[in-house]
């Protein structure tokens, strides 16, 4: 008999839709503001706060912005543009000509909510863009033929210090040679330049300059023009899935001393565009 009762209760329970949300019994967390932090970009820290997080139609809301330079170099031409204000109106563009490393810029926009028929969640979209420089250096070691064989016979070819370094940024440009270093005087070598970036933003490169070290003699380069002792990018780099097609440059090596180690340097000017959004509840 008891089992029958238990069985009936189980059946009854199974037929009930779960979960049942009873709004007035569900404790609601009342927040006075809502903040969005963008930390994925190594160059910039961005925080947007809406105060309050809910607003009635016709009332004002404060959009508090904070931008900090996280890079080691100056960020230039920073623009923040709220391009989708949903039902709000008010100032939506801010330009900062230059921001030093570790410096923060804060400002507040006062927006007014327009009229609505029914409560809505507004997804405010904004774009942040800035310009910065990327730099890298890559050692190029060219040995005279005799020096190469001496070091090869001594088994110390790999001990030749060949270093490379690059700045920290969302942009990544890699320079590498198809042939192994060190090179022998008179070799024809091919340098491959790869382009990629991290994050979900949009990367635009306006200028890349490569200074050719004196131990390399320019032969040809598909995407670069030679100007004095430099190479200048001539094509627009189109990034698809965060990558652009690489460039190849040919050089002949030239050693002015038995072990000629020089540095190739590359500087790039880039503009990075980040899109983000923050939600604000507009009540009737």
């Amino acid at each position, binding site marked *: *008999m008891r089992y*029958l*009762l238990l069985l*009936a209760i189980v*059946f*009854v329970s199974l*037929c*009930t*839709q779960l979960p*049942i*949300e009873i*709004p007035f019994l569900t404790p609601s967390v009342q927040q006075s503001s809502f903040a969005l932090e963008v930390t994925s970009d190594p160059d910039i820290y961005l925080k947007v706060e809406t105060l309050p997080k809910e607003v009635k139609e016709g009332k004002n809301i404060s959009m508090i912005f904070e931008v900090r330079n996280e890079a080691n170099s100056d960020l230039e031409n920073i623009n923040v543009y709220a*391009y*989708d204000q*949903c*039902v709000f109106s008010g100032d939506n563009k801010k330009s900062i000509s230059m921001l030093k490393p570790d410096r923060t810029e804060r400002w507040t926009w006062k927006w007014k909510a327009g009229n*609505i*028929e*029914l*409560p*809505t*969640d*507004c*997804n405010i*979209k904004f*774009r942040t863009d800035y310009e910065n420089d990327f730099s890298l250096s890559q050692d190029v070691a060219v040995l005279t033929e005799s020096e190469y064989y001496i070091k090869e016979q001594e088994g110390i070819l790999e001990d030749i210090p060949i270093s490379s370094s690059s700045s920290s940024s969302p942009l990544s440009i890699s320079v590498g040679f198809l042939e192994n270093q060190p090179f022998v005087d008179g070799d024809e070598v091919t340098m491959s330049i790869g382009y990629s970036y991290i994050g*979900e*933003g*949009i990367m635009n490169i306006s200028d890349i300059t490569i200074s050719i070290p004196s131990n390399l003699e320019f032969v040809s380069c598909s995407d670069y023009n030679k100007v004095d002792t430099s190479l200048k990018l001539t094509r627009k780099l*189109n*990034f*698809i*899935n*965060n990558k652009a097609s690489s460039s190849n440059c040919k050089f002949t090596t030239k050693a002015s001393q038995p072990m000629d180690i020089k540095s190739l340097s590359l500087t790039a000017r880039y503009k990075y565009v980040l899109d983000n959004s923050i939600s604000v509840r507009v009540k*009737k």
Partner: protein
Amino acid sequence: MKKLIFSLITIVIISGCVGIPDIFKGIIPGQKTQVTELPPDLLVIQNINTLPTPPVNAGDQFTVSFEINNQDEIRGIQGDVKVQLFDYGLCKPIATSFTPPDGWTESSGMYTKTFDGFDPLQTELIEWTFTAPNSNEIAYLSTKCPIRFKITYSSSAASQVDVDVINATRLKELQRTGQTPTYTPNQTVGRGPLKIYFDFGASFPVKSGGILPIYISIEDKGSGLISGGDLPAKSLQLNAAGFTRISDQCEKFNSDLTNNGTITMIRKKSIPLKCSFTTPTVDIEKTYLISATLSYSYSITQEVNVQVKP
């Protein structure tokens, strides 16, 4: 043992497979929009009571009472709310004992009281006193007095949907970064028996400067009836600020985006009304709110059968 089994079966039948409707938020699968629908109840008749509990003795007095409640917490009912007692069989109303005591008019046996609007959550008690027919009038046979009444009110329905418009450059940017631009419009269907739904003949996000066909359909989800059965011309108002109406693809609407003819309701549903728009030119991407309001008059009828015994 038999009693217990019977009780268990009763429990299972009564409390078992009862679906609790998600009246606060619902996603209608297969639709192109995410729908949040508020309840259909607006003005309701509740707590109907007869005193003394029928059957009542022939010639005795009895009262029928009920409450009219505006269930909307935010919006009041602006227009008149009419309560009409239109049928009571052989029972005789005692108008001097009605509650509320003032404002009742009688015409051809129909008693009417008009309230000047209803505030949010306002409740009004209506109480009618009747005299049951005497034994002679019912020929010493048990009979029923059908107490029939209705409330009629005018209100407006509202729905709103957000539409994301994107320009070609932004679309290309997203595609190049390997992101698939997707967008599901959020549709909020307001409180009340009449519901307005949006559907779209284009994929989202819509391209700036493109064509967006909008289909608007109306459904009666209330327990009453639309006064007059159909919805008259100019009762539906579409608001699509920023969008440009394509006149030859919007034949059911006037230039001010009101409906230009009667909206026929068949089985409590209208056929979708189409209106196409050219989407606005946007810088990057922008969300627009498209809304529709519908003015209507609605009536809810109730009946209480009071048993009279000789």
